[in-house]
């Protein structure tokens, strides 16, 4: 078999991920703001006796690295054995998209142009002369519609037919610069000589380590301008606009979503709507599933085990430990799925970029910019991808702040805790109580960001430049792939981590050094009792609450699983509504789960920040819960 290394390169939102999924059949996320495809995605396609290894890179506007994502992509293209670059462009916006194409062509590696979104091209009444385009750029151009699988075969054909000949494509930069180029053409590894020369003149940071020069910035300006001039000239030859004055849906929608007065209220309304729907709609399923697990399944299994004359301890382990624990978590699967569907739709439709724009002014007041707002919203789903998406932020300090405050955004796994407790202590007001917790999380995040920017991470205001992509009706297939990925993770977690945690907890609660024991004398009670005093000022100095919180650091949904096991129906004896609220606040704010901690370590690449984040969140959680409880005691 013939092996081919291909890589997908293109602007954000040009459809790379969609094409990647359709070509490889692999399932992963499709999003609509710069920063969703953060890690390298690889897949293999077997086609006509060829094995194509395809890599999906983060979206880039240029080969020059501004953000970490652009660095990742650039390094991959430059440092790996790439047989062919598939440059995917939004064909309905060639002018800006072709800028990257020109830079790729200058690299001197084989490039295929995939003209995506040909459906929008047609709708906008644009006519592209493909032959002419191919001729001018001396590359192959394949029209495709990634979402409809149009042009897939032609694209694969051209990937397998690509030859290694260098293109003779060249832009004339004018006499003076051309003179400089010929002066600085040098052999360096197997890079294209002309490309090395151009990068040298542009004072490119990576190449500068090898060849140090300090050229006038004006040359860079000229080189960039010349590329755009070239594109202007090219498009005049290959493009014809059939519908002049085409005004798309996007412009109309933007009039409302980015409106001076309506923009922010609309955003808040959308969030409130998402929130209440998730809660009320999810609640219906929770009740049904709860009945299914705790009544139907549990009693069926219990009866069966009795008939089978299984040891009573094993019966208790299975029914109380496993079904109680794992089932307690699984009942929230629909709620979490609904939340993810909404967040994915917000991203995929293009709305998230508008939210970033209207929030820019407010985010700037806390020292960040509008772009940092997107990871915060994504945190409502799950903090792990949210923290990963901070890679799109250009400023290192902003990025650290965005990472450190993200865990305060209440993720989907914390929702079960609120749902469970507020159903007991705040019946009829569940949604309000839960909403107040989300709000508190946001406020604490904002406050901490403000403090961090004033103390640890002073930096000048960072740039906010963001493309607002055309709106699009979210693709059902893409949304479901993404939501399923997330929900699957949650279910797998319930079947593995939570399963093990439930079993361990059961043993901890039913044994001590002397063998089987009562709850109150068990290992678990010993551990719980030793840390419980810390939580006394917060209103829940009970050993069971302490033990629950300790194990909840593995994953927050474990808190619910454990409460089922530990308290059964005796919650009322240990908690008052006030201490239950204080407990929920603590769950909201204290250490994120292990997965989030791991992500913080990876993304900051520092143990220091990881430990810092754990430590400071414990302090914040303890302080806020204590204040709420103590002040609450004075009032009620």
């Amino acid at each position, binding site marked *: 078999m013939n092996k081919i290394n291909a890589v997908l390169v293109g602007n954000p939102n040009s459809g790379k991920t969609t094409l990647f999924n359709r070509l490889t059949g692999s399932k992963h996320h499709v999003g609509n703001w710069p920063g969703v495809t953060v890690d390298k995605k690889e897949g293999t396609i077997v086609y006509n006796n060829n094995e194509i290894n395809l890599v999906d890179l983060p979206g880039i506007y240029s080969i020059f690295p501004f953000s970490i994502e652009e660095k990742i992509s650039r390094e991959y293209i430059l440092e790996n054995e790439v047989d062919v670059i598939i440059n995917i462009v939004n064909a309905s916006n060639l002018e800006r998209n072709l800028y990257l194409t020109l830079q790729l062509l200058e690299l001197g590696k084989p490039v295929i142009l995939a003209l995506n979104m040909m459906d929008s091209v047609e709708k906008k009444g644009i006519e592209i002369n493909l032959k002419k385009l191919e001729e001018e750029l001396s590359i192959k151009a394949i029209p495709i519609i990634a979402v409809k699988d149009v042009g897939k075969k032609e694209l694969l054909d051209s990937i397998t037919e690509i030859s290694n000949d260098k293109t003779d494509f060249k832009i004339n930069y004018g006499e003076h610069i051309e003179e400089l180029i010929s002066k600085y053409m040098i052999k360096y590894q197997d890079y294209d000589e002309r490309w090395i020369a151009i990068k040298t003149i542009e004072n490119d940071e990576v190449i500068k380590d090898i060849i140090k020069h300090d050229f006038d*910035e004006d040359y860079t300006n000229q080189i960039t301008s010349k590329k755009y001039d070239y594109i202007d000239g090219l498009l005049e030859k290959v493009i014809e606009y059939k519908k002049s004055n085409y005004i798309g849906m996007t412009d109309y929608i933007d009039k409302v979503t*980015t409106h001076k007065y309506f923009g922010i209220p609309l955003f808040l309304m959308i969030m409130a709507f998402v929130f209440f729907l998730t809660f009320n709609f999810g609640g219906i399923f929770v009740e049904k599933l709860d009945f299914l697990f705790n009544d139907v399944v549990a009693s069926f299994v219990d009866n069966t085990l009795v008939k089978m004359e299984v040891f009573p301890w094993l019966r208790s382990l299975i029914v109380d430990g496993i079904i109680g624990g794992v089932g307690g978590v699984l009942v929230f699967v629909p709620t979490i799925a609904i939340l993810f569907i909404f967040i994915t739709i917000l991203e995929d439709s293009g709305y998230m970029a508008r939210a970033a724009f209207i929030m820019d002014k407010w985010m700037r007041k806390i020292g960040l910019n509008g772009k940092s707002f997107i990871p915060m919203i994504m945190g409502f789903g799950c903090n792990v991808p949210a923290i990963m998406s901070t890679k799109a932020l250009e400023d290192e300090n902003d990025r650290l702040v965005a990472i450190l405050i993200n865990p305060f955004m209440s993720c989907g796994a914390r929702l079960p805790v609120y749902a469970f407790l507020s159903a007991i202590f705040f019946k009829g007001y569940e949604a309000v109580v839960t909403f107040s917790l989300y709000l508190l999380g946001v406020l604490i995040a904002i406050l901490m960001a403000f403090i961090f920017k004033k103390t640890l991470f002073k930096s000048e205001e*960072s740039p906010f430049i963001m493309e607002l992509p055309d709106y699009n009706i979210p693709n059902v297939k893409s949304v479901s792939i993404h939501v399923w990925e997330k929900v699957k993770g949650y279910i797998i977690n319930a079947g593995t981590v939570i399963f093990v945690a439930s079993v361990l907890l059961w043993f901890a609660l039913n044994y001590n050094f002397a063998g089987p024991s009562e709850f109150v004398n068990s290992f678990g009670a010993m551990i719980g009792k030793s840390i419980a005093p810390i939580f006394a000022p917060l209103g829940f100095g009970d050993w069971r609450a302490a033990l629950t919180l300790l194990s909840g650091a593995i994953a927050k949904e474990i808190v619910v699983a454990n409460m089922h096991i530990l308290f059964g129906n005796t919650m009322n004896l240990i908690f008052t509504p006030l201490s239950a609220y204080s407990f929920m606040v603590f769950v909201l704010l204290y250490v994120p789960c292990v997965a989030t901690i791991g992500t913080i370590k990876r993304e900051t690449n520092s143990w220091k920040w990881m430990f810092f984040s754990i430590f400071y969140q414990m302090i914040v959680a303890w302080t806020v819960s204590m204040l709420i409880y103590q002040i609450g005691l004075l009032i009620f």
Partner: protein
Amino acid sequence: MKTNNRKHGRGCAYRNNCALPEGCVFLNNVKENTSVELEELCSNGRLRRKLQEMGLTKGVRFTVINNTHDGPVVINVRGSKLALGLGMSEKIMVKKFA
């Protein structure tokens, strides 16, 4: 203090200075639905470069389509919509044209 002034881009003398060239304004002061021509980018190396690569090259014509949020603006340049924060828009000097 950096002594290398060249790195800060040209035209930066105009920052915080009322003596703008005839007919020029900074982008944050441009009314909605106005078409303008880019005169000068008053920012340092990396930012300047980023803006240029996104299509804001000298002399390019574009339209301001949203400027009601006290700073951040949305422009339509080279067929794409770009949102620029206040930190950006107040460094982009443009000239109106009829």
